[in-house]
């Protein structure tokens, strides 16, 4: 029985890793394929625009509008690919990735890092997604003025805490927790746990604990 539980845990961890590998592949395909092609089209269009003679005045606004829409498509694609797999996580690790995440969050986020070097990839990825989801939720639902994010790795345990000073009561609203449930599964599969504390009127605190080597 115990052996089967251990095997089950291991197979769930492998599933999480396979999912991440797949996300990395999709991000890479979009980057090398679709994004490159769109940039190339944008360049050709820019060149055409520069070469349009004054006599082509009627075509000018059409080309200009096409270029604007193409720029918007590229911006959307950029956000999408970073949502699928944040390249900075692979390149610079959890600290830099959280710094960037907090930097562009829709809510003021204060970050404190107590990390030393790189952590295993599945651990970094899980932590990143948890913070990302927590910041999104805080910005959307909490009516908080600010969020505090702390990531600490000590004695083989990574602890990540995201606390806002908002209205609390999370989990009561329908549909609110679906993103978090998936993340809780992910954390659980890696042998950690994700807890939410959200008493009404006292803000929401998300806490993730994950073995990190």
């Amino acid at each position, binding site marked *: 029985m115990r052996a089967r539980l251990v095997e089950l845990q291991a197979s769930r961890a492998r599933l999480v890793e396979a999912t991440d590998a797949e996300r990395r592949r999709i991000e890479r395909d979009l980057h090398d394929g679709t994004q490159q092609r769109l940039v*190339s089209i944008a*360049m050709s269009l*820019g*060149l055409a625009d*520069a070469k349009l003679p004054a006599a082509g005045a009627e075509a000018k606004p059409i080309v200009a509008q096409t*270029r604007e829409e193409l720029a918007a498509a590229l911006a959307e694609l*950029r956000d999408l690919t970073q949502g699928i797999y944040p*390249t900075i996580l*692979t390149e610079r690790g959890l600290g830099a990735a959280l710094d960037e995440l907090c930097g562009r969050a829709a809510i003021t986020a*204060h970050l404190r890092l107590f990390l030393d070097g790189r952590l295993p990839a599945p651990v970094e990825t899980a932590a990143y997604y948890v913070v990302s989801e927590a910041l999104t939720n805080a910005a959307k639902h909490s009516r908080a003025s600010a969020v505090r994010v702390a990531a600490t790795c000590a004695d083989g345990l990574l602890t990540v805490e995201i606390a806002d000073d908002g209205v609390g009561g999370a989990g009561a609203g329908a549909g609110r927790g679906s993103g978090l449930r998936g993340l809780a599964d992910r954390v659980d599969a890696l042998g950690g746990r994700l807890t939410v504390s959200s008493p009404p009127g006292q803000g929401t605190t998300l806490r993730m604990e994950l073995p990190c080597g």
Partner: protein
Amino acid sequence: MRVVVADDAVLLREGLARLLVEAGFEVAGLASDGSELLELVERARPDVAIVDIRMPPTHTDEGLQAAKQIRARWPRTGILVLSQHVHAGYALELLSAGTDGVGYLLKERVSDLAELAASVQRVGAGGSVLDPAVVSQLVSRRRQDDDPVTKLTGREREVLALMAEGRSNKAIAEQLFVSEYTVEKHVGNIFTTLRLPPSPDDHRRVLAVVAFLNAQ
């Protein structure tokens, strides 16, 4: 002005070269990864190297690493790094060794021939270029208490943020519903508070922004 281009995607490498020729630059060579780029710069001694950040073999930040090496070995070669993503931290890494002759642009900006030409010219002339999207990401970050930027008034910070987006005094004045003279006064105060030495005005604007960003 002589330039070289490094990008692993043939489509973009060739396309970029074509745009640059169209804009009146001499394209002295093309490279498809970081080590090829270093050889090319050594051989061709261009005024500016235009470098994609993500190239083989690791497809992460080879372009940035190559750019740092070029800065160390051929400090007079300007570098314009192109990135598919807005990574403010990377831009700061690049600028931290000095802002002369360095630029960081989102890749899609190259579709605007005039903007591309102006950016390459500016980097080649020893100036700096920072993508507005990168700047706005940096500006929106939380600041520490000992940051000199905290000594600026709220209005001055607003002006600085708009400067960081690359806007002219006139555009800032329109945005804030004040006179251009008022904006000039704010800009002067910002330069003084951030202790920026006198230099050509455009360059000082970029330095103000960079000081602002580096201070975090």
